């Protein structure tokens, strides 16, 4: 990712969700980002948050997104493991077959069952319901398929399997892994004022 704001530092940015990278309160900018997750083994500091969207109970949310600046010298690959290179962006559409690679469920292929959903999503950390606008829902293709997305997969880029173009950013899932929600990538890019850096 690259910033579209002239006042931002020049450099590669990491994209994830606000609920993943940004702290609940206090100053968001400069918050340390670790990889892998703090609950996993051997997390190391790789960067700092540049900005994040606000998640609030009182106003419907359009994007759950955050960007972080990588620290100097941190190695990265501009590709998604098991999914591959991303060819651009595209609006999600019903019946589109999509792929993602998440931290918990790994690689999965699913189908977009519905777009433009207004949905209440539970925030387990604060035990509140957040209302999101314009989510799309990705479901398992077969009932016996492995989980399509699970808790811990947030921040995964969702890619159209045919065109290899990014269509969304995963931010919610059910406990069983039968479906996940993602936000259209165009909304995330617009709200965070960033562009997708292609390989």
């Amino acid at each position, binding site marked *: 990712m690259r910033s579209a704001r002239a006042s931002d530092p020049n450099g590669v940015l990491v994209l994830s969700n606000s609920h993943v990278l940004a702290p609940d309160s206090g100053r968001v900018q400069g918050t340390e980002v670790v990889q892998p997750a703090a609950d996993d083994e051997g997390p190391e500091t790789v960067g700092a948050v540049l900005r994040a969207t606000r998640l609030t109970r009182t106003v419907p949310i359009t994007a759950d997104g955050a960007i972080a600046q990588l620290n100097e010298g941190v190695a990265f690959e501009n590709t998604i493991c098991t999914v591959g290179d991303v060819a651009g962006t595209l609006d999600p559409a*019903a019946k589109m077959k999509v792929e993602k690679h998440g931290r918990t469920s790994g690689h999965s292929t699913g189908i977009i069952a519905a777009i433009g*959903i*207004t949905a*209440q999503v*539970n925030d387990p950390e604060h035990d509140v*319901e957040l209302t999101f606008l314009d989510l799309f829902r990705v479901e398992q293709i077969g009932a016996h398929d492995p989980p399509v997305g699970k808790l811990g997969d947030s921040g995964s880029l969702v890619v159209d399997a045919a065109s290899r173009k990014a269509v969304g950013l995963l931010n919610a899932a059910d406990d069983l892994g039968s479906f996940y929600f993602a936000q259209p990538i165009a909304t995330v890019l617009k709200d965070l004022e960033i562009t997708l850096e292609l390989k």
Partner: protein
Amino acid sequence: MSEQTKHLQGVLARRYLGKQGIHGISIDEDNGTVKVYVDPMQDATGAVDRLRKDAGELKVQTIASPRARLA
């Protein structure tokens, strides 16, 4: 999505999200259907009946689905 559909979806969401286990609403313009996502552990019959009246000529499809959590 047309402005009229967006408006209707906003109205339905404000009125029915959180009522009797309804946790998601979308309108499919291609087939004129309102999709209503309902917690399978709750009986949303009353709320869905009221929603059906507000939806006018659109069909209403109820989908039993667990709630999503921030992942």
